[in-house]
């Protein structure tokens, strides 16, 4: 039980009402553990991103529960959920969503600044994480001056700078070529994943499947297949 990071039970999420109602997630249950990279794969429109949003405290489900570190997140208030996302979850968005008007170091420091940490201390700590992702020498540049692969690493540095227990990567290789994508995932597996962190990745890029510890396939809002490992592996 101490190894369990996320437990999703009977999750249901729909959009629209009446005849226009569309089910994005249909009674999905699964568990994710610390120290593993869990992949959720499937075709576009299968509900992967919706499921990811529900378990990371971004999108409220219509029914079902999500327990992260044994805490039921959807019983929290809006402010508590914001704190949960800030303190427990690290996000790497598909389009990175880096701030072009800030330097790379300032981009990485954002979660620390939101945690009300001192500006200079936050930048200093961000520099350490830029060193981890190999971009310390580019810290003063705006993200637009970096290559796509470098921007991806900046996004990863931003996601891990606040020491999140749960790291969420949404289509992390969608805008990268095959080699760069593999290098990034290799880097994440070797340097970012540890026994106190759970990484959940949504992707449909089969070139990076090899880095997963477990892999679930979603279709039409349901987990239809476990491609690697078990659904509730301990």
């Amino acid at each position, binding site marked *: 039980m101490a190894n369990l990071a996320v437990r999703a039970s009977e999750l249901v999420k729909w959009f629209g009402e009446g005849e226009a109602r569309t089910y994005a997630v249909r009674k999905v249950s699964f568990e994710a553990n610390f120290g593993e990279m869990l992949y959720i794969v499937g075709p576009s429109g299968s509900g992967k*991103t*919706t499921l*990811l*949003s529900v378990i990371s405290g*971004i*999108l409220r489900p219509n029914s079902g529960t999500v327990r992260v570190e044994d805490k039921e997140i959807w019983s929290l208030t*809006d*402010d508590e959920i*914001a*704190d*949960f*996302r*800030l*303190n427990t*979850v690290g*996000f790497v*968005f*598909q*389009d990175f*969503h880096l*701030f072009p*008007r*800030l330097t790379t170091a*300032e981009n990485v420091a*954002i*979660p620390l*600044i*939101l945690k*009300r*940490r*001192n*500006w200079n201390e*936050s930048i200093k700590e961000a520099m350490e994480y830029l060193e981890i992702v190999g971009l310390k020498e580019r810290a003063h540049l705006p993200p637009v001056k970096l290559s796509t692969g470098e921007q991806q690493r900046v996004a990863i540095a931003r996601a891990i700078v606040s020491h999140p227990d749960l790291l969420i990567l*949404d289509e992390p290789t969608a805008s990268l070529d095959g080699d760069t994508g593999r290098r990034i995932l290799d880097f994440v597996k070797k340097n970012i994943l540890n026994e106190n962190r759970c990484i959940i990745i949504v992707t449909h890029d089969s070139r990076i499947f090899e880095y997963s510890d477990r892999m679930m396939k979603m279709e039409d809002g349901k987990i239809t297949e476990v491609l690697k490992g078990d659904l509730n592996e301990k």
Partner: protein
Amino acid sequence: MIGILKLGYKLLVNDKAKFLALLVGTAFAVFLMVQMTSIFAGVLQKSSSTVINIGAKIWVMDPGVQTPVYSIPLPDYVLDGVRSIEGVKYAVPLYSGGALVKLQSGVYQSVTVIGLDDASLFGRPEVFEGQIEDIYGENAFVVVHDQEFQKLENPKIGTTFELNDHRGVIVGIAKVTISGLFGIPTLYTTYNRAIQYIPSTRYTISYILVEPKSKNDTAHIKEEVERMGYEALTADEFMKKITRFYIFQTGIGTNILIMTVISFLVGLSISAQTFYTFILENLEKFGALKAIGIKGRELIYVILFQTTFASLTGYGLGVGLSSLLITIAMLRVPNYTAKINYLNLGLGFIMVLIIAGISSYIGIRKVIKIEPFDIFRG
């Protein structure tokens, strides 16, 4: 929280084009608003120049008088009546009227003639060349050295002119606190010489200037004068009456108000639209901040800070620009009338706050609605 606001500051300021547009919009609006209202304040101040320069505490006049320039003569027995009111320390007559003088070159020039009480010379200007006592000399006049002075062909002591077929001679050159509004030179002489040289209806007085024994007597004096069918106003009340006249009965006030409102709308539209564009362009980024964990109210603080910072910087630039222009104009343009006071600065500030408020409202409304899920969904 300072770090979060600094983040907002950097997001705003580093977007140089938008920030510049915001500053230009606000500064331009403030510049126009302050300029318009300053010109109006200058007009109002100059329109009260006689009241300010004479310095009497209470003015007695016909109730129909709107400005000191157009006096309605009072019967001279009113002076005796006022002097007999309890609480009056002293009361003196004042002549104020217009005349044409023929200069040595043969040119005719309009002037304002102020006739001071012969006994006390109450309301006399500060003479810096010659002696005020020389005003009792034959045909003596004291000329005010202001922007209009050169219209009298830069007279010196001893310069003569003609006024209603009377000879006049300059015996002193004086300065006053404020020059008049209409660009006409001012001559001071004694009351008796003024009514002798510029005859009006017999036994009449332009104004009666009153000094009360104490401030508490003012109300009683006003009541008694009103009972006589005339009006007694303190200097402040008289200036307010003049202000009301220029605002409501000349059209100047309405036109200035329209220009000020247009300036406000121009500033509002530029600033609000630019800020809205800024928000739209950064909407995804604000959504990403929400996903990362910024709270709704912190996002509101960021936007309020951004609009307030841009507006106040624009306000400072606008006021600075306006002050600079007015200063240069005053140095270069004779008779330029403008005055920056706390009222027009305050008015500009309030309007800038409204601009900031509306811009913030538009931005906050948009940002609050963005869902972090939209960022995930792409």
